[in-house]
């Protein structure tokens, strides 16, 4: 036996030629370069905002009233803008998320090949690409011209912006639910509504929630749709439905063009606050996804 084994020609399992290895190395280096290049603007933005905004952040800054522009950042804060951002975006979410999720469910579960489903799908697609300023103009003409500036008008514009994102993300998540799960439920005598509510939605809920929160984060940072719809004010307006309002994004827009260092510092602080809000929403999205993924494996 041993003799036979030793006589056997050994198979050459080494890699033939060097070109494939070279290609591999080139591609690997290329990917790393792309990764680093991508990180540069990201890191730079984050670094600048933190460097210039961190010193402004304090409880007083987050809750205090907006002082006149000439005052330094140690006076007052941006409370009305924080309040405005949270309430306007929150109300926009209340309108857009249920509607968008239902729309996504309709397209994927009920629409089938119907014309209506395909039309909604197509326009949701188109609307995701519409510049946000157009949404602002749209609400300006159909709402603000008749009822005046208000936080609610801003919510409407943001909701228009969020709606297609929510529809699309819901639709994509539902599409990922395998048909075998639907069939299993149907085979037990479930109705379509049951199948959708007890099998399809639970299986997709993590993705739907994180998609919705991404849309919220995106809307929270929008400036253009708000400029046309909430006007801008420096004082706290607790009435969402009437009178000019303010938000962090519009405050940044205004203050950034001011010659006063105090106003500029407030703009940087607001920018950091906005990033923090988006960051918190992302973390919440991750947590919710993880919570619902409990039974994935």
């Amino acid at each position, binding site marked *: 036996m041993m003799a036979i084994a030793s006589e056997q020609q050994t198979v050459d399992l080494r890699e033939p030629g060097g070109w494939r290895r070279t290609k591999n190395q080139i591609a690997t280096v290329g990917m790393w370069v792309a990764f680093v290049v991508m990180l540069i603007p990201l890191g730079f933005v984050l670094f600048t905002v933190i460097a210039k905004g961190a010193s402004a952040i304090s409880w007083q800054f987050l809750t205090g009233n907006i002082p006149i522009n000439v005052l330094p950042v140690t006076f007052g804060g941006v409370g009305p803008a924080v309040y405005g951002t949270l309430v306007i975006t929150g109300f926009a979410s209340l309108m857009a998320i249920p509607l968008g999720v239902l729309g996504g469910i309709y397209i994927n579960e009920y629409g089938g090949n119907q014309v209506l489903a395909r039309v909604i799908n197509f326009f949701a697609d188109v609307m995701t690409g519409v510049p946000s300023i157009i949404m602002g103009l749209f609400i300006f003409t159909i709402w603000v011209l008749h009822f005046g500036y208000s936080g609610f008008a801003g919510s409407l514009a943001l909701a228009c912006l969020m709606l297609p994102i929510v529809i699309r993300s819901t639709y994509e998540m539902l599409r990922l639910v395998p048909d075998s799960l639907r069939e299993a439920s149907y*085979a037990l*005598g479930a109705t379509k509504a049951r199948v959708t509510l007890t099998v399809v939605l639970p299986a997709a809920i993590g993705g739907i929630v994180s998609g919705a929160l991404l849309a919220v984060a995106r809307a929270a940072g929008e400036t253009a749709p708000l400029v046309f719809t909430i006007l801008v004010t420096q004082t706290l307006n607790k009435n969402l439905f009437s009178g000019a309002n303010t938000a962090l994004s519009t405050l940044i827009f205004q203050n950034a063009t001011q010659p006063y260092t105090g106003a500029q510092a407030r703009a940087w602080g607001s920018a950091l606050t906005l990033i923090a809000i988006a960051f918190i929403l992302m973390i919440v999205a991750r947590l919710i996804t993880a919570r619902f993924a409990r039974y994935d494996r």
Partner: protein
Amino acid sequence: MEPQDQQVTANQQVTAKLQAPQTTATPAEFPATEADKIFDAKNLSIYYGSFRAVTDVSLSIYQNEITAFIGPSGCGKTTVLRTLNRMNDLIPSARVEGDVHYRGASLYRRDVSPIAVRRRIGMVFQKPNPFPKSIYENVAYGPRINGIRKKGQLDEIVERSLRQAVLWDEVKDRLGKSGLGLSGGQAQRLCIARTLAVEPDVVLMDEPCSALDPIATGRIEDLMHEIKSQYTIVIVTHNMQQATRVSDRTAFFSVLRNEKPGGNDTRTGVLVEYGTTQQIFEDPHDSRTQAYVTGRIG
């Protein structure tokens, strides 16, 4: 029994083919009365759009028996199986001609609710498809949608079903864990338990063992024998040994190619022969059946 037989018939028109004698009568050595008839399919043709997947199938399935559907891929076994509990309704282009009677009632009358049909006629699929829920919730799902809410009653059903599916001992300590964490064989038995939990009259099985190893397959076959006294089972299988091991009756389906000029061949599934499993495997009347069961391809 000439091997050429099939070649010759394949070149004939489909319609001519349909007049070919089919063995649908109950074999004398296997007495089953009209009253035991669970399904009675008459001249069943199933279309997907304009494609006729299955042509003119007539057969009867009897109570507390295991009936196996065998045949090559694409011969419409699964399609026929899925007409027995209206699962084909879920495919928008599917259309059924002819009729299936279930315990004397037509399954395809206008006023028949597929929901009601599927509550009585359960199905186990080729790939184990547990819900992304806990093991307990997987089994309790069916009873819940049938309106059973009481915890005690559900606990009882879950345990009984898992015991019936011979899975209880393996999972009783982790009923709260995900159904997706089970092995392939366990997951398939979980799916069987889920089906049995609604106490169906009939269990349809679509190649339930094709994704499983021989040991898991053996477990499921034992299980089928065990539950046979309470249920009527129809099983689609690619595995002829499995058909001989588990079934009382066997239906052999085959593909009929209809060559048209210009290369526009159409093909459709037909029921070639139906009889007791013993007769099909030991004394097939049709040459195609013989070619298939002896491994000379069909």
